[in-house]
């Protein structure tokens, strides 16, 4: 349980580098809208699925493709390292 909470926290931490104070609100909206679950219950498998949605959404907010791919790479990296720890 502690690990999933930490993953949610880390996802917010990464997103803050791109969306600032809007990061937590953004992550919460994405989890609720696409996964229909409580944000705190985010699992590595969920994050992997969510990354696809997040890439599409963040691409609408900036034309800088490097920024988008950097953000998505960080999330994918988080997802894979957490998956190893989780299972």
């Amino acid at each position, binding site marked *: 349980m502690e690990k999933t909470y930490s993953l949610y926290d880390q996802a917010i931490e990464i997103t803050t580098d791109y969306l600032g104070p*809007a990061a937590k*609100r953004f992550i919460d909206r994405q989890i609720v809208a696409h996964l229909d679950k409580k944000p705190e219950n985010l699992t590595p498998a969920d994050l992997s699925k969510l990354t696809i949605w997040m890439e599409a959404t963040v691409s609408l907010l*900036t034309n800088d493709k490097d920024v988008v791919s950097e953000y998505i790479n960080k999330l994918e990296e988080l997802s894979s390292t957490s998956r190893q720890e989780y299972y």
Partner: protein
Amino acid sequence: MSNKKILILFISLSVIYLLEALFISSDASARSKFNLSATEVKLLSLTVTLPIIFIWMLGCYAYIKFRSYVDTIAKDKDGRVFRIISYGLLALFLWLPISSVFSNMATYLYRTNPSWTAPLVITNNYINLALVLVGFALIYKGAYKLINLKESRNISGWKYITLLPLVFISALFTFLTLNNPVRQFPSADVPTAAYYLPDWLLIITIIIPYVLVFYLGFFSILYIYMYRKNVRGIIYKNALDYFAKGLLCIVLSIIVIRYLAALTTLFDNSTLKIILLIIYLLILLLLCGFILLVKSVKKLKAIEKA
């Protein structure tokens, strides 16, 4: 005030302003001075009136969008701070239409009743000042709270850099205003004085409050820039950048407007081309400011909608 009421208010003011431009007869002495017919004056005034109305509508749109953005983040710390800034923006966006409509109405009234000139000019000046002062005081309050949301507040160096142009602008404004030969009484060439106030009252109730407006405006921009510098979020920073730049254009246009008011006699000796050029440049500056604000607000709103 609901969005619908705000929209109705802006549309009503725009219609009144347009009607004033179309139906209030132009000054006969000015027409003969520039050798223009009444129709030519009307057409020329439309080239100013229509872009100005467009700017007002941009302001209305920016405010409605900004308020909707603030509503979505109302529960968070930044939401409460941005709400204060939104009230300031509303006062600032209302300042343009209210002062323009009142100014045209006042001009019409004192042209038909010359004895009303002094009280109408004084009232017009104070309405202008009150809205701008309230607007920037609220934006300053919000911007100050915004910078206090972040831990790093080492801005003392930047404060001195901001103070330098501010002192120069304020000193020049004071000098020009107090050296305006028609500040208290009209002359043979200039039929309407700029303030109709004795110097001591002009200093206390016009010059000092406008210097305060300049201070609030410049420091609001500095605080927003500093918040932008300290806050994390590449995309979020980008939206704040437009916001600060838009506000800077609006502050600069207010400074230009105050300088122009102090240079009444210079205008009386200028050609129509120069006067129109200055007016169009001022409109362009305001337009840039409002477009940048709209761009910023759209970006901030998009982040919260994503």
